[in-house]
């Protein structure tokens, strides 16, 4: 069969930042550093923060549950290594600032690196040996969350909900962020594991149609996935769709627009229109959890950027510090200006390199001053000339400059009248702004301020 790797499906707006995938796209997934210590965050997901299940100085085994919560929207955390609890305390968190973490000291002699599970899966995997409840429970127990970035607990996503029946399962392999290649490598190397995970997720959610979407700048991944789908059992209704390479194609709202030409309601979630979107890494984790009964304790992280000596994709324990990972990759070669958790478009610049990676960290990107650009580096902003570029690129059809200037002038009601809450913070507006205004930054500030105000208001 001829595979069409040219993606014509797209959404309106968006930008084309330099892809920079060539730094790591050919580097196979390798085992990460043998860590001496990990810090497992108790909040690695959206929803309730876990409470620790262990105490200081307690011995833990790899895969042991060390934090859990009774809340519906939450996910437990597990120890990735054998070791002793050194402390339970505050640790730098990319989003929350500081958050509780369990720090585990490894036993050096008793810590074999975790084996990859990819070769345990073959193309004749049959998901019907598991019931939907079994799958949902295994996913919950394994603490699986959306690994693309948002970290929404996967159980909540795939569990059937009588009020919002799901019809279409979209597997997101777009990876539209520049630099990052972890999902691409997983698609090439763990193909059967991903497909097994897709089948399990399909079974659990009761979706009748499945689409795997991949940006057309990854023709190899499209071919490999299509070929594997052809061969695999029960894969007739799974379709591979090439989508146009454009940022933020991998945003779930944009992806749904591209594939189905439907808009997710503002402030709503995909199940409202009968869609579930899962990242490829998440579906690989589902397969691992259900079949191998292993919790989510490791993930693939792309360590990349022009300043990194040996950029590559590494399978590392969750809780490894950014510093350790960068050192493992040979450190930095030139003067680096920014260390970013995630990609350059939506990632978060950090100053404290002891910050641990968590379930949603797909990449560590180290940028030099040259990549950031002089104006951006100096944070020199000039006046808005109302050129309208931010309106053109906004994938959510908002008026970013209006919102940003309302926030700047402390007019939050005006910002709301321009639908500030509909912003997905993709960063396209700041990326194209000729005046170098941090449009996204102002919008984020406005959203946080609004959220704070709401909390203070009596009901």
């Amino acid at each position: 069969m001829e595979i069409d790797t040219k993606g014509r499906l797209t959404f309106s707006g968006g930008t084309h930042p330099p892809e920079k995938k060539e730094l790591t796209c050919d580097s196979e997934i390798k085992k990460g550093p043998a860590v001496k210590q990990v810090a497992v965050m108790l909040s690695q997901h959206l929803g309730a923060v876990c409470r620790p299940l262990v105490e200081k100085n307690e011995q833990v085994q790899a895969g042991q549950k060390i934090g859990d919560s009774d809340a519906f929207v939450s996910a437990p955390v597990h120890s990735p290594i054998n070791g002793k609890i050194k402390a339970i305390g505050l640790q730098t968190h990319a989003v929350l600032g500081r958050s509780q973490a369990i720090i585990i000291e490894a036993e050096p002699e008793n810590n074999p690196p975790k084996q990859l599970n990819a070769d345990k899966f073959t193309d004749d995997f049959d998901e019907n040996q598991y019931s939907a409840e079994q799958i949902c429970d295994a996913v919950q127990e394994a603490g699986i969350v959306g690994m693309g970035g948002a970290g929404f607990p996967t159980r909540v996503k795939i569990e059937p909900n009588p009020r919002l029946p799901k019809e279409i399962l979209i597997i997101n392999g777009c990876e539209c962020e520049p630099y990052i290649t972890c999902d691409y490598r997983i698609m090439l190397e763990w193909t059967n594991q991903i497909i097994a995970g897709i089948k399990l997720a399909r079974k659990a959610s009761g979706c009748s149609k499945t689409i795997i979407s991949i940006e057309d700048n990854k023709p190899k991944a499209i071919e490999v996935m299509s070929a594997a789908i052809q061969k695999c059992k029960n894969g007739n209704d799974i379709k591979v769709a090439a989508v146009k390479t454009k940022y933020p194609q991998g945003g779930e709202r944009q992806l749904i627009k591209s594939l189905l030409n439907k808009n997710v309601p503002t402030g709503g979630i995909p199940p409202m229109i009968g869609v579930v979107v899962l990242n490829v890494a998440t579906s690989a984790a589902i397969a691992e959890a259900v079949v191998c009964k292993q919790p989510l304790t490791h993930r693939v992280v792309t360590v990349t950027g022009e300043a990194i000596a040996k950029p590559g994709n590494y399978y590392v324990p969750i809780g490894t510090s950014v510093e350790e990972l960068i050192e493992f990759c040979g450190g930095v070669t030139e003067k680096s200006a920014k260390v970013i958790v995630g990609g350059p478009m939506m990632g978060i610049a950090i100053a404290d390199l002891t910050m641990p990676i968590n379930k949603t960290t797909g990449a560590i990107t180290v940028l030099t001053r040259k990549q950031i650009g002089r104006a951006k580096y100096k944070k020199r902003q000039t006046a808005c000339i109302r050129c309208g570029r931010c309106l053109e690129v906004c994938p959510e059809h908002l008026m970013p400059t209006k919102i940003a200037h309302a926030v700047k002038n402390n007019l939050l009601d005006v910002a709301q009248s321009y639908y500030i809450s509909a912003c997905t913070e993709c960063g396209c507006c700041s990326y194209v702004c000729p005046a170098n205004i941090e449009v996204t930054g102002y919008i984020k500030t406005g959203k946080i301020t609004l959220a704070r105000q709401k909390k203070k208001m009596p009901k």
Partner: protein
Amino acid sequence: MLRDLRVSCSPHISEHLSTRSVMIDVIIGLIPAMAAAVYYFRNCALILIPTCIISAMATEWLCNVIRKKENSLGDYSAIVTGIILALSLPPRLPVWAAVIGSVFSIAIGKMVFGGLGANIFNPAMAGRAFLTVSFGALMTTWTVPAPLDAAMSKIAPENTIHARTQATPLAWSKEVIKGKSETKAVNEQLKATITGEVGGCLGETSAIALLIGGLYLLIRRTINIHIPFAVIVSAVAFAGIFYLSAPEKYAQPMFHLTSGGLLLCAFFIATDPVTAPLTAKGMWIFGIGVGLITILIRIVGEYPEGVMYSVLLMNAVTPLIDRFCKWIPAGGKPSV
């Protein structure tokens, strides 16, 4: 190695664009019009254009010094204002008047509002309006282009109008409307208005030069297609309505399009992003308004040319247009 790290909000990379590069594009787009001005009006253009640029830049610098603000000459917007003002001035305008116009453009048209991005009116048009009301006679004295001085009869053999008034084609068409002259002579000027061999403001006579510059801006995506298209379509449409109602009285729509400042306005003046609406729908309302008011002033009003006032009028309603053309998010209005 990993010291001195920067922390800021995402995104951490940006497109290599700056206000200056946008303005440089506009200046490049204006080069054909400036070249045409120099070709047709020789030393008049060579004096007026630099005069306006220099006095605009000096005014901006002075305003920044007075306001104790950072020097903003680096964004090159003063140069653009200076060029556009110069191109919309009559060739024989005295230098002192051009300086006054430039100073007014920058100081009152732009800086009193808070500088680039905050002005309500197009600075160059504000300056020109000031000159028109202050020095009406100077602003309506037109010179015949240099290559034509001796050979005017070649273009319009029985052109009696030239000898009498030395006016712009639009002024002639005004005479026609008033019943003092024939339409034929005016419509014969069409070819001349395309190449630019007619009397008029420095930069507005050559339709071809303006089209080349406008096309460059469109290809570079410095300007959006909406405003130029809307201005041209509406001007042609409304002029067409008049023409069809009484062909013997009114000039052809094509004549209205190529003569006067309409093309300069469509590509370089109305498209000034600061004073134009943000959304495509708003741009269309704005452009149609500019075209309509221009034609109304030209045909019904007292002045032969109406581009300047139509732009200023539409500038004034731009905030209102923006308010009416608010976008709704892709996912619809939030339910809460």
